[in-house]
């Protein structure tokens, strides 16, 4: 197990490095001089020159990279020119709504998807199964921001049950928080639910066909115990992987969904930064999201090894 963990940890280092290089160079590919873009057309050459020196843009590009990269290890992601604060602070200030949205969406999708997937697998080929899978197909085909707009139109504008946009933090009371989060969470969770229920169904079907399930049934174990205890536990492994893989999709969806509902999350931070050409914020935020994606997948891989001994033995 130790060797397995070490191997996985080592394998992530080159990827992290390449991620950092990509983030750095995307920004430096932007045509024109960042300093003059930031200051606008009316700036004098002297002002531009001062800002360039202040931001370190006058140094050779590899020196800028080394400087920036060394900063990251000290938790220094640069600072936002527009907001006049360190990028890390801006990120932490915006991470709350996004995390809350992602967690709510993920919980909603798991609560809906796993039972649906299990039922569909138990009754595969019946109308129930077909109905569930048609719903899942529809869920898979509606982009989350579009579902967000449709929900907003229906529940916000027509029925006026819930506010269409805005945000209030958890500290202002749970209901206050939730009433702003329900629609975004449902619109983001729906596509997740579709993916997870399809995955649950197919992995449950695979497992229900296995010999040990037949043995359990032949022994006279109750059907519900076979399905929920013997089968579902093993079906969890592929489901766990999907949860990790779809984290990226969840963040992607959150970015756009946030802009629909005006939630002050990471999505808004990045989009505003791009509009304002606040390069340090774009770099820092995208980098942190990519890092957290990699680390989450690493954790899931390690959990995988923990849950299923075959994984760590095979990969040695």
């Amino acid at each position, binding site marked *: 197990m130790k060797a397995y963990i070490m191997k996985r940890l080592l394998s992530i280092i080159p990827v992290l490095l390449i991620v950092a290089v990509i983030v750095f160079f995307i920004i430096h590919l932007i045509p024109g001089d960042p300093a003059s873009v930031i200051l606008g057309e009316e700036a004098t050459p002297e002002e531009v020159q001062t800002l360039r020196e202040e931001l370190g843009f006058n140094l050779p590009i590899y020196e800028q990279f080394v400087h920036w990269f060394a900063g990251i290890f000290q938790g220094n992601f640069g600072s936002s020119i527009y907001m006049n604060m360190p990028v890390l602070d801006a990120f932490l200030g915006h991470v709350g709504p996004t995390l809350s949205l992602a967690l709510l969406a993920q919980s909603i999708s798991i609560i809906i998807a796993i039972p649906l997937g299990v039922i569909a697998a138990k009754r595969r080929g019946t109308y129930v199964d077909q109905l569930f899978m048609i719903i899942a*197909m529809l869920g898979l085909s509606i*982009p989350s921001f579009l579902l967000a707009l449709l929900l907003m139109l229906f529940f916000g504008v027509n029925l006026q049950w819930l506010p269409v946009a805005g945000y209030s933090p958890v500290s202002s009371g749970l209901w206050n928080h939730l009433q702003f989060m329900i629609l975004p969470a449902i619109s983001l969770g729906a596509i997740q639910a579709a993916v997870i229920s399809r995955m649950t169904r197919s992995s449950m079907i695979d497992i229900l066909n296995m010999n040990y399930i037949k043995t359990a049934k032949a022994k006279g174990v109750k059907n519900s115990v076979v399905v929920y205890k013997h089968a579902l536990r093993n079906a969890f492994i592929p489901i766990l992987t999907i949860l990790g893989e779809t984290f990226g999709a969840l963040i992607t969806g959150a970015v756009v969904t946030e802009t629909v509902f005006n939630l002050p999350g990471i999505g808004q931070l990045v989009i505003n930064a791009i509009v304002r050409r606040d390069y340090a914020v774009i770099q820092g935020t*995208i980098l942190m999201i990519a890092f957290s994606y990699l680390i989450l997948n690493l954790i899931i891989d390690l959990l995988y090894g923990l849950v299923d001994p075959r994984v760590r033995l095979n990969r040695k």
Partner: protein
Amino acid sequence: MTSEVKLKGEVGIGILKVMKNDLKKEQRRLFVRRFWSNQSAVIGSIILVILSIFAIFSPMISQFTPLEIDPVNRLNSPNIQHWFGTDNFGRDLFSRVASGAQVSMGVGFSVAILTAVIGMIIGLYSAYYSVLDHILMRICDALMAFPDILLAVAIMAVLGPQPINVVIAVTISKVPSMARIVRSSALVIKEQTYIEAMKAQGASSLRIIWRHIVPNILSPLIVQLTYIFAIAIILEAALSFLGAGIPAPNPSWGNILFDGKVVIFSAWWMTIFPGTFIILAVLGLNLFGDGLRDLLDPHSSKANKLQK
């Protein structure tokens, strides 16, 4: 004597060729039959055909052009003259949705083709050369760590708002997963005995890769292509909706939704119509892809599909 043998041989080869052709015909006939009995494939292709007809012909029957501004008739609800209503500039929504269909589906299609070609080249060569494999796959891993929309938005910020740049941005964010799928299929083929035999006979790697591996990975590639097409439509819509995609005033489904969001309280039609078309296009492609997968690639893991 010798000529007779030769003649017999030629006749034999001729018969074999005829048999081979018959076999191919039979296979094709069976494929067509299985296609028609596959519900998803049929429903999916019907939706796609209808949408393509809509995209090609509706600009011809519309009395308005998508960019024609008519401030007097701002935000009209759907009526006989303006079938889908008008937008906040008084532009006819039907012709905007129709011309948006060309833009959105055009972007999606170009992305799908480009991604398939680039992903195939990367995937094949990294499956074949293990040194390349290490480098290319680490880069793919790194690119896949970025949420696709953020990567695309960042690339758009670099390249500037142009339709061709939307294609480039979305392609870059989708190539890595395509390359991974091609690579994993190619790795399986590469280990087969007949490839080993080819190598032993001294076939060039170019020949092995393009004449003997490629035909065997086409099925998963084509299936994946339809899914990428669907994802590209979603990404284009999302990019345009964020204001980083197709530049205004040109219509695309995402742009119309962007304009519609501001007036969502008064003009439901600006959200419902383009939204319906996005859902139909993505649904059609997903169904078609699922159908094709069952037809072409019955053993493939369903997990591939879920990688979005």
